[in-house]
């Protein structure tokens, strides 16, 4: 079959099984858009800003496990995509970004809408390509998908100069079934000897804990993780990125760990003697003060990326491999082993954990006359029966969503953890909704974040992707305000927005339903009404307690056993700001 470069790109995507392209046209990709026009197999979603395209593709990828696909033009289109590419990179999300480029002969001449996309994205992609030969186009796209989806996943940019897609130049087309790259051979199974050592250590542990992260979700290892945890009867904690990898409503789950994790999770980490880290990367939000991180523990670490191992925290037993096969290997060895975990040790360990649990670190003032954000999330959980896909933006609302919506299944909690990108939530929700049109999709956001990609409300309408926007409106850049309260003696420098749009009218202007809720008793009915409106996007502008803070918290530079807990009395109602 002979095709031109533009057709090759689209046909390659089709052959790769791509369902959606999230994109925005411009000069350098006009040939490509013409090829898109002439087919119906790959559906194109026209966003309103290229950042939205990347986040939507990202949300699609996180919810489905399939790579997200983005198409942008050169220059400003490409630079607008960079925030979303970096977001995907930090959370290891598989994504292929096709960017237009000026024609090969003028590259380097400061041509109209020329930027060095390969150079700009180099530090925030897993890999990138500049296509210089149309006969290599299909193979390059195959390589991009291969690299993006294998090993530790990540975004891959394919920069395509306009002359490569010239409709007049046709070449034979064949999409490779497989590609191999001699310098790229990600590990699958783990080293047997290391696994044996790890199993031995696990079976002699007195105060063990499983610390599982986003890698379990990325590597589809949830089932094995559950089996592993139940078999050993160990406590388990998840990172922000790992929520849903293990059912949060299960009794062995001690909650999220880290800066805004539970008291019991952090104390258990601190006191443990053996930690098994599974697809987690010892992020500074998790470890707190490094010198005092888990002082008594021997650590086992399973990770597909050797560079994640012993990067910040030295581990005793590194295991390089994919979560799923390594856990399968471990399960087999544990079952065959004559040694069993010590029942007695575990009993007293659980007793200790139950004492930490009794602190009830997540309690909040349920009698407040103001709407507590935590209450909204609890109600959201009930109304959606815990089954919705929840995307979020970045800030306090993100933490409350993570803390008060217990996720029982992987891929249902979709947020930007590593880069912490405000503006992520709404476009991501659209990507999720397109992937799962029959599921409830809600975006938990804040008055600051939602304004960063608000334009995508228009995309939601055009492509019939009805999502529910839960705006926890505190009139503040709340997370910033909280830090200013804690560490800058409440000097609220530029964390208050004097003017916030009327979100109800704004939603209506975009063709959606808007509701404002300012009383606690209205929350539940409003949520019910919103989710009953199956085919409408509903914007719930919920005016919450403006001075509420996220607790518990490990303040900057402190250790796991030095958490700041909520002071029970003196609730924020009393501290309401003028």
């Amino acid at each position, binding site marked *: 079959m002979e095709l031109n470069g533009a057709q090759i790109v689209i046909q390659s995507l089709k052959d790769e099984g791509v369902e959606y392209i999230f994109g925005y046209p411009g000069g350098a990709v006009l040939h490509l858009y013409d090829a898109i026009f002439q087919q119906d197999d790959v559906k194109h979603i026209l966003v309103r800003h290229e950042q939205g395209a990347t986040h939507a593709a990202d949300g699609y990828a996180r919810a489905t496990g399939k790579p997200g696909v983005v198409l942008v033009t050169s220059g400003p289109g490409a630079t607008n995509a960079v925030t979303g590419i970096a977001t995907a990179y930090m959370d290891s999300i598989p994504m292929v970004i096709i960017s237009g480029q000026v024609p090969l002969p003028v590259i380097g001449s400061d041509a109209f809408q020329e930027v060095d996309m390969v150079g700009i994205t180099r530090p925030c992609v897993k890999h990138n390509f500049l296509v210089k030969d149309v006969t290599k186009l299909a193979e390059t796209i195959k390589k991009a998908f291969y*690299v993006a989806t294998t090993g530790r996943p990540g975004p891959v940019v394919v920069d395509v100069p306009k002359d490569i897609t010239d409709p007049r130049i046709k070449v034979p087309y064949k999409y490779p079934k497989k590609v191999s790259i001699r310098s790229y051979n990600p590990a699958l199974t783990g080293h047997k000897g290391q696994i044996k050592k790890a199993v031995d250590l696990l079976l002699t542990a007195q105060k063990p804990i499983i610390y599982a992260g986003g890698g379990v979700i990325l590597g589809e290892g949830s089932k094995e993780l559950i089996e592993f945890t139940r078999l050993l009867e160990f406590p388990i904690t998840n990172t922000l990125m790992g929520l849903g990898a293990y059912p949060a409503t299960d009794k062995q789950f001690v909650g999220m760990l880290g800066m805004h994790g539970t008291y019991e999770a952090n104390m258990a980490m601190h006191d443990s003697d053996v930690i098994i880290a599974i697809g987690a990367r010892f992020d500074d939000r998790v470890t707190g003060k490094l010198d005092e991180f888990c002082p008594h523990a021997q650590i086992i670490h399973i990770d597909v990326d*050797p560079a994640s191992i012993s990067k910040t925290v030295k581990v005793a037993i590194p295991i390089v491999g994919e979560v799923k096969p390594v856990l399968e290997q471990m399960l087999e060895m544990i079952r065959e082993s004559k040694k069993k975990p010590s029942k007695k040790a575990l009993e007293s360990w659980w007793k200790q954990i139950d004492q930490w649990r009794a602190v009830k670190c997540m309690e909040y003032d349920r009698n407040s006359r103001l709407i507590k954000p935590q209450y909204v999330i609890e109600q959201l959980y009930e109304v959606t029966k815990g089954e919705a896909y929840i995307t979020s933006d970045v800030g306090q609302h993100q933490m409350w969503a993570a803390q008060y919506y217990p996720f029982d299944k992987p891929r249902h909690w979709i947020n930007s953890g590593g880069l912490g990108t405000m503006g992520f939530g709404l476009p991501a929700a659209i990507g999720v909704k397109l992937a799962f049109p029959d599921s409830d999709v809600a975006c938990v956001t804040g008055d600051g974040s939602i304004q960063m990609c608000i334009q995508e409300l228009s995309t939601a309408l055009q492509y019939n992707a009805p999502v529910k926007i839960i705006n926890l409106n505190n009139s503040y850049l709340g997370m910033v305000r909280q830090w200013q309260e804690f560490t800058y003696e409440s000097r609220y420098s530029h964390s208050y927005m004097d003017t916030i749009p009327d979100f109800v009218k704004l939603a209506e202007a975009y063709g959606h339903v808007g509701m404002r809720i300012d009383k606690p008793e209205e929350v539940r009915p409003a949520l019910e009404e919103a989710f009953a409106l199956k085919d409408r996007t509903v914007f719930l502008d919920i005016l919450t307690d403006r001075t509420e803070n996220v607790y518990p918290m490990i303040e900057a530079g402190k250790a796991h056993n030095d958490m700041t807990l909520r002071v029970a009395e003196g609730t924020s109602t009393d501290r309401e700001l003028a």
Partner: protein
Amino acid sequence: MRHIISILIENESGALSRVAGLFSARGYNIESLTVAPTEDPSLSRMTLVTRGSDDIIEQITKQLNKLIDVVKLIDLAESDHIERELMMVKIRTTEHTREEIRGIAAIFRGKIIDVTPTTYVVEMTGPSSKLDAFIAAIDGDTIIEVVRSGPTGISRGEKGLHL
């Protein structure tokens, strides 16, 4: 400690900047970097000298290995190896100093490869420390220019860095 990392990398445009970019982005130091094609035209060989604690060097090699363009690498400092650097030094000379400079150059097995009435260019190869010693032995005020290639290295014995 000082480490010499020898890298086989795809001979593609941009490959060098991936390595250089990695070092600047992650705050690793590069003392020197040399690159040239190998007998296999699809591959370049890079020799990189860096300093750091064992932990940092471990991260550096892991991060380098993560680059898709990096095919293989070894840390030469981990085993027996030979290290050579090429240097050319332009020295201002006078009637009286010529003899002495020739003498010192001879001790260091340097060659005089260019002569003008007022200058010599001395060429020398050897481990970097030897080149440093030569520079130290010459009167600093007479040195017009020093050009060094940065070290390259090869392991001793049967072992080698190849595909």
